[in-house]
């Protein structure tokens, strides 16, 4: 090693800073609230050779932790094969094809080669969740799509910016195929501007330390991240760790999908084998390979948050390609549920497999659903159509330190849910409750956190309700003797009659009239450790605060609270 460790640390934080500034710039300038408010985006630096992740913004959405290196790798390969036009300085590619290293169609990726002395030094890339990319339903989450064409416009890698200029021909094709197109120019410019900010900052670092030194540092950092992950993974005794996790259904065929995971730990490396998982499904609950990998990585990062995000950290994690399963979907399988739901079930499988080996670090299973509820309709008093999204959290798993958090964000996200007051300002609905879902936390020595219980009434006009949620059939898993959290529930009142969707957590286009209501109970987190080991004083406190009834205290914890 010729580069000194101090310079190495300085360059590491410099590269991190470049990505953090790209994240910040993207969010602040973006129009789509999904990006601007919910930070459903990510920015990073990728290797010029193989697209390997060099550094990624700390505030990026966790599900993108591994995906962009696959899309960048694919792009580099396609350029070298001549299937995609080679770049010149100032070009920026756009791509959203899920099968080319992506997630679902709404996650649109930009990639820009970064040049030094006429050569590509590295790639800067970012992903932003666009509010719409066309397809059967506004927003793209069709619970009953059976092919990707129904989900929206699919873009292969094309140069949207050529030598710094937006290609209006490509842009007009995009705009003609998506909803609310007039605002997309703001997101496109914000997404491109973030890459330019990154290029400017990265250039300054290279000028200061020298291209060769930075190149060497990048290689060294990759090696060290691998060492760090190996040291962490080495805490897991050699052996095979198994788990199963279930997706309720694919939205089309009402049968559960199983994720069958066997993790083999050997001398600081983990091998993830998903064989035995369900076949590719008809409905949109398929995962593409990049998302499956990313889900494993983000689960491991939840367990070891100190390891920097870089390709090196992934090296000790070997994932056997789950060919022939729904975790390696091929064209034209529909995939809209992969980033929001299937990814969380994969993470749950990883947690469930490793919690016994790492009881101090891993929690019981969290709610693990994004809780997408979309209401589309026409508001007669404002004379306009609308699509409303209610996303919601659920209980987190109990863990060695404390009870699970209530109404936590999805495992793969960091976005906040919108306030009720804002929803009611914008859409013709009235919330009758937005409350802690009592009794939902899985019992355990440390119990799971509580889910959310909300009820919405449609005030005016006709509308249809669609749901893409999960954990309706099975609750989030308890660990080490803890009980499962309560499953997700959806009830629709049409004209005073209560209806439970056939697929429990998934349904599309249920018609609603004014006065009809929707009530959702989101999952509680899994319990950790045996319920009978819970301090009776804590059980009594939960009863005093109305989180459990006295009956539940007796049934679940064996504690009689008077």
């Amino acid at each position, binding site marked *: 090693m010729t580069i000194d460790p*101090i310079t190495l*640390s*300085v360059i*590491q*934080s410099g590269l*991190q*800073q470049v990505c953090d*500034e790209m994240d*910040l*710039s993207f969010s*602040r*300038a973006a*129009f789509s*609230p999904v990006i*601007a408010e919910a930070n459903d985006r990510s920015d990073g630096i990728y290797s010029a050779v193989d697209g390997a992740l060099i550094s990624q913004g*700390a505030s990026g959405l966790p599900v993108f932790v591994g995906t962009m290196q696959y899309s960048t790798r694919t792009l580099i390969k396609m350029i070298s094969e001549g299937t995609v036009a080679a770049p010149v300085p100032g070009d920026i590619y756009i791509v959203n094809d899920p099968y080319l290293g992506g997630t679902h169609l709404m996650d649109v990726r930009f990639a820009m080669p970064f040049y030094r002395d006429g050569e590509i030094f590295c790639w800067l890339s970012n992903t932003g969740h666009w509010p719409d990319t066309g397809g059967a339903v506004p927003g793209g989450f069709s619970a009953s799509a059976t092919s990707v064409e129904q989900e929206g416009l699919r873009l292969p890698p094309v140069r949207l910016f050529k030598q710094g200029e937006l290609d209006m021909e490509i842009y007009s094709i995009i705009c003609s195929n998506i909803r609310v197109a*007039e*605002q997309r120019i*703001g997101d496109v*410019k*914000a997404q491109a501007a973030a890459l*330019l900010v990154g290029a400017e900052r990265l250039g300054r670092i290279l000028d200061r330390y020298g291209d060769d030194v930075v190149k060497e540092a990048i290689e060294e950092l990759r090696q*060290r991240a691998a*060492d*760090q992950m190996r*040291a962490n993974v080495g805490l897991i005794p050699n052996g095979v760790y198994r788990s199963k996790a279930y997706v309720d259904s694919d939205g089309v065929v009402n049968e559960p999908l199983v994720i069958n995971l066997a993790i083999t730990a050997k001398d600081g490396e983990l091998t993830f084998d998903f064989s035995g998982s369900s076949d590719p499904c008809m409905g949109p609950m398929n995962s593409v390979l990049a998302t499956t990998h990313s889900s494993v990585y*983000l689960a491991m*990062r*939840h367990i070891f948050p*100190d390891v920097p995000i870089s390709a090196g950290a992934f090296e000790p994690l070997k994932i056997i390609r789950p060919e022939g399963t729904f975790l390696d979907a091929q064209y034209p399988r529909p995939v809209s549920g992969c980033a929001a739901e299937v990814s969380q079930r994969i993470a749950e499988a990883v947690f469930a497999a490793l919690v016994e080996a790492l009881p101090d670090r891993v*929690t019981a299973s*969290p709610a693990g659903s994004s809780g997408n509820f979309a209401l589309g309709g026409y508001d007669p008093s404002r004379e306009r159509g609308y699509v409303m999204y209610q996303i*919601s*959290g659920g209980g*987190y798993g109990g*863990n060695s330190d*404390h*009870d699970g*958090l*209530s*109404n*936590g*964000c999805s*495992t793969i996200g960091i976005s*906040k*849910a919108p*306030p*009720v*007051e*804002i929803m*009611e300002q914008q859409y013709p609905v*009235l*919330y*009758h*409750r*937005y*409350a*802690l879902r009592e009794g939902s936390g899985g019992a355990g020595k440390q119990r799971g956190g509580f889910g959310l219980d909300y009820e919405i009434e449609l005030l005016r006009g006709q509308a249809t309700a669609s749901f893409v949620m999960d954990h309706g059939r099975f609750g989030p898993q308890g660990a080490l003797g803890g009980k499962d959290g309560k499953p997700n529930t959806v009830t629709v009142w049409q004209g005073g009659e209560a209806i439970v969707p056939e697929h429990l957590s998934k349904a599309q286009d249920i018609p609603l009239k004014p006065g009809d209501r929707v009530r959702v109970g989101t999952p509680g987190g899994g319990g950790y450790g045996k319920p009978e080991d819970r301090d009776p004083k804590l059980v009594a406190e939960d009863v005093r*605060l*109305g989180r459990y009834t006295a009956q539940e205290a007796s049934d679940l914890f064996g504690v009689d609270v008077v």
Partner: protein
Amino acid sequence: MNVPQSPSKEITASKVAGVDVGGTFTDLVMYDAETRTVRLAKTPTTLDNQAFGVLKALELADADLATLDLIVHGTTTTTNAVLERTLCKTGLITTEGFRDVLELGRRTRPNAYGMKGEFRPVIPRDLRLEVPQRLYADGGVYKELDEAAFKSALQQLLDKGCESLVIHFLHSYANPAHELRAGEIAAKIWPNENITLGHALLSESREFERGVTAAINASVQPLLRRYVERLADQLADKGYRHDVLVMNGNGGMVSARRVAIEAAKTVMSGPASGVMAAAYTGRRAKIPNLLTYDMGGTSTDVALIRDAEPAVSNEIEIEYAMPIHVPMVDVRTVGAGGGSIARITEAGLLQVGPESAGSTPGPICYGRGGTEPTISDANLLLGRMNPEKLNSVSSTVSLADIEGIFADKLGKALGVSAQEAAAAVLRIANTRMADAVRMVSVSLGEDPRDYALFAFGGAGPLHATAIARELGVPRVLVPSRPGITNALGCVVADLRHDFVNTVNKPLSVLEIDAVHALFDQQSAEGRTLIEKENVEIEELREIYSVDMQFIGQTHLLRVPLPGPRPTLEELQDLFEKAYFNRFHVELPEIKASLVNVNCSVIGRRSEIDLSLLIDPAGRKSTLEDALTGTRKVWFDGLVDTPIYWRDHLPLDAQITGPAIIEQMDTTIVIDPGDKAVQDADGNIIIELGAGV
């Protein structure tokens, strides 16, 4: 501009004392305009009752309370209560179906990675009650307030021993009628004045943020009320005849008689007063664009000042899921301070922080049992801080002990000496802190290179030149008394009231006359409030701005205005310019919208002569006379470095680095090749690289 006031009510504040209670010390600056003297005092903060420390500081400064015209007080009473959750028992009455809003939050988790984490709501679930009542989003009534149920809820909360009350109804920002009516009923039944209405502090939508703001206000209100009343009584007993003014988080001050009504506004008052002092110092020094860098033992506060006005934010979160959405000086806290611990990671890289030795056990050099190498220890080991201080602090730890720990825990793994390891610790720490400062500046849309670094706090001036160099900032300003900047902030603070009105209309349909009328109304209200304070002011002025966005965007961009009469064309033009400066993007395709109309009314008090902060009589006539010695200090290797005593420096002294300037409350490091001069106020201004 001079504002005519009735002379009979007016106080000519020629003798004013600023007292700031910090986490460790209570500091005082007393300024007498007639005798042109300044007195300073520092005494340990008395945590159980901060008033003892305040009285002690006044006593140490020999203050004659009978002749003192004004006491301005910065207190951490409410800050500590919130952070340590020593809150008053508070009850909440809210809309049916919504009592859990304060506990559910916005569906978040404390860290992006890691599925652990806890959250404790400000008000526990059994003290959150619901009553039948509901408004639509436009303020129309869906369900009338059930007054009988409300009275019964009040009684339940009283029976449970609640001392303070929050009434928080959905959409009260659109129509406060139900909250006002409930407030009327409560006023007859509730045994004290501690009643907070949700819309009163913050009349904006977002039920969680408004609710938490109100809940924090209510839970600290009785504490603050008791504290300021007791303090005022004690001061009166000792002969003080005027109002005590208390610092607010917006950098203005308000009478102790009224401060508790909006108690939540005092939660960030300590850091705000430091920034106000920086803005004041910078304006006088004609360096109006500053990044403030206040480094203490456990954390570092950073803020941005543009044209001598600190950036203000309405969206401050004081800790995870604890938003206080009232206008406050935008101070960002970075979790790195003198106590940050250096360690070698599993990857063999040197890392500084985020773990901190805190104040107990603290750095090794405190001699309280600390065994982990920290930033403070590195400064000591490298001669940047005076090693003789070690003897005065503790006899149990020697420099050799510290050297041994650095060699053992860091040097071995890095293959370097203890000193080289310490230098590496500082380099890493400075890089990280510079990154944090840069993010603050970039997030506010400013390039740090256009600013000067204002270094204060006990450790700020030790690191300032190195951080400025990382940032490309050309100059560093070190004020006369970096360790008591917050107390100085109390002395120089303005009277200030901030107003925000939401308009939310595209420019295409905006009636500009309505905007002008809002500005007039805000300005008139502010002037009325300031006149009520009975404090002499030299100048009354307004700052006008609007918050704008392109239609469809959710983030707002603040656009400062030259005056209260902008035309639509000017608004469009100023917004486009501000947007381009911030994002380097032009969007002719999309229309702009005006969201908020803002006005701050500021009453400026008479000038304070800052040159008196260091006794002019104590200054020596030559630089040589200010020299106290030399010692070896590490600058890429050990260098014989002259050490000066700040209070002895002649005002026209010019110092070329390497040099160390020591003073009672801090140590200033001047790197080789940098040049330091003083201005008329006694500020040290270091020009980076100017001495070569």
